[in-house]
């Protein structure tokens, strides 16, 4: 059947936002997702941080774009923004890739505003290990509310959303593209955008298209009830440290640790993709994360563990080296006219991707 001008495969944040954008541009758009609801995977299981650029002193492009897109994002998704807490960035004395001086200079260069943290905050930090702490302009997002907002945007843009439909492969048929579904159905569209994040290569492999060099990590995001003394989000920079951030969808905090959050990692090869996530261990490392984090923030030891969320996080190989988080966007992928692939990155960098798509419309 000929379904739409645009078929978007993957109903995560990027897929949904791109579908809504194309719908607003006047195209007929069909959005398919394998799950029962939108934004249930990596769009939900993350630190819920709206990046203001502070997090990337080693990738100025990511920092500048985060800074540039920050206000735009909180304007467009205002109802999902949570900013009723102070966001603190602390610089570790030992083992950090940057010094306090460098962090301050970096913020000045990129226009990221910051002020020194108040004594009420700094007295909670171990000053033997923390060199300086700053309150910054950064907030969190509620992924549950983002989902509702995206649903509204998709509806008002006239996008047809179909969930619980898994696309297996894509085939070029004369002037159109055809998506073969696990249910046996076949949907034709003039253009297809694949935005399935960690399972991008699954579709590409099934479609006999070249695979993307993607790196994957099996990550654990423990959720905790913070002690009453901690009413702020804390990120210790810049290296093998941790972030303790509000996680609005579940009214608690998430703890992520650079060293312990990824449990396993792998890279898609030239002909092989992914591993079966069902077989991956879900043995929590929350105690290890807390053990290390309490060295910097002693009162975190009183946080109550609730549960852990598990997800596959996917990045480009270069991001391992330079700490950048660019979005991957390739149109006419593998010489297949009309087929585009998108690998989303930081949620607030969405607009950079939309700008590229706009150029092609």
């Amino acid at each position: 059947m000929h379904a739409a001008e645009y078929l978007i495969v993957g109903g995560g944040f990027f897929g949904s936002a791109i579908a809504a954008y194309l719908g607003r541009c006047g195209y007929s758009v069909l959005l398919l997702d394998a799950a029962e609801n939108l934004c249930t995977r990596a769009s939900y299981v993350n630190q819920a941080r709206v990046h203001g650029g502070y997090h990337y002193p080693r990738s100025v492009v990511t920092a500048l774009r985060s800074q540039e897109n920050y206000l735009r994002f909180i304007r467009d998704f205002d109802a999902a923004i949570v900013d009723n807490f102070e966001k603190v960035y602390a610089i570790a004395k030992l083992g950090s890739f940057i010094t306090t001086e460098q962090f301050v200079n970096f913020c000045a260069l990129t226009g990221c505003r910051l002020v020194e943290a108040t004594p009420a905050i700094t007295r909670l930090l171990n000053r033997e290990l923390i060199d300086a702490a700053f309150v910054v302009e950064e907030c969190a997002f509620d992924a549950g509310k983002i989902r509702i907002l995206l649903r509204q945007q998709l509806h008002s843009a006239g996008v047809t959303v179909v969930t619980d439909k898994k696309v297996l492969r894509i085939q070029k048929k004369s002037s159109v593209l055809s998506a073969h579904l696990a249910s046996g159905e076949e949907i034709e569209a003039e253009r297809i955008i694949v935005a399935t994040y960690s399972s991008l290569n699954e579709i590409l492999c099934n479609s006999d298209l070249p695979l993307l060099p993607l790196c994957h990590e099996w990550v654990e995001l423990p959720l905790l009830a913070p002690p009453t003394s901690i009413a702020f989000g804390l990120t210790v920079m810049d290296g093998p440290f941790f972030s303790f951030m509000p996680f609005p969808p579940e009214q608690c905090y998430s703890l992520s640790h650079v060293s312990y959050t990824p449990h396993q990692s792998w890279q898609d090869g030239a002909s092989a993709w992914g591993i079966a996530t069902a077989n991956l261990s879900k043995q929590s490392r929350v105690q290890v994360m807390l053990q290390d984090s309490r060295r910097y923030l002693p009162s975190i030891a009183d946080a109550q563990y609730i549960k852990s969320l598990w997800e596959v996080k996917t990045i480009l190989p270069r991001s391992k080296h330079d700490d950048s988080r660019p979005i991957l966007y390739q149109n006419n992928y593998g010489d297949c006219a009309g087929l585009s692939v998108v690998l989303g990155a930081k949620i607030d960098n969405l607009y950079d991707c939309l700008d590229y798509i706009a150029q092609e419309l």
Partner: protein
Amino acid sequence: MAQSAGFLSVIALRRNHQIPLEPLIHHLHSNAAKLFSYFEILIIDCGEHTVFFEEQAALERLLSQLSSLRYLRLSKDFGVQAAISAGFDYVIGDTICCLELGRDPVEALPALLHSQRSSLQPLVLGRVAKNTLSRSERLLRMIFYRFCRSLLGIAMAEYATTLMVVNRQSLNQLNSIKDTSRHYKAYAFIAGMPFAYFDYERLPEQRRESLLKKIDLALNFIFNYSSRPLRWASVVALSLGAFNLLYVFYIALIVLFKQKISEGWVTLSVQGALNFFVLSMLAAVAVEYLWRTVDESRKRPHYFISCDRKSEQLLSNLQHIRNVVTPQNRISP
């Protein structure tokens, strides 16, 4: 070569003012634009010469014609390492290249960047081929490197030049070393940073650096990175003390057992001369370290900037930056 995503910073050291600035910077600009979508060029005038009207006019033209250009002039000649430090402090890129205008060929940039990607090392240092050096320089360098390596225990990147490429993470680590006198050739070893060499042909020196300056650089290097001369001084001082003690015993034995004591003019003279020579050497070494300690304790900046100019379109590229990797950009490292 496809353009890379990310942001390139090029530090262009300007030491020789006889080399025309405009064609070199235009050439560098067009090369950088081919390599990276987003870049900046930071010209560091090392402050070795007075800037005359023609050069200032050329600079003004460059700043008005080219985007992403910045010019810093050091208030005086603080040495090439301080100039590199200034560049490292001011650049904002994810990948940082450093070269000396007129000495390091701009054409080497693509190969240099490629060697960093292919070697997967955070730091790549340009190295000049030994056979391109004069015989005397080669000999002096060889003696110096061997002396540093064997006797002082200082490892350094031998035959390395000012040409280098480093990633942001490693640059931040280098910048966290706060020595007053910085020598980047040794930093890779001090920080235990993995690095690779990039062999290339350096352009001939149009203005030879004075021997005194080179000696000063070598002494700076030795006393900055090795405490062994101080240890030697200590050992020699102890030996001298022991020798003098033995000499006292010798005198006592002579007095006790010899009937007729000669005047001892020769012995005394030799002993006095030797003692003073050794004491002078010890004082020299101690003073060198004392001077360095005083210098470090002042915590003065490594350099002062006398002129800071930006191209009018400095941020023009940044406004068009998108954090997106496309087929035109590189995905793999």
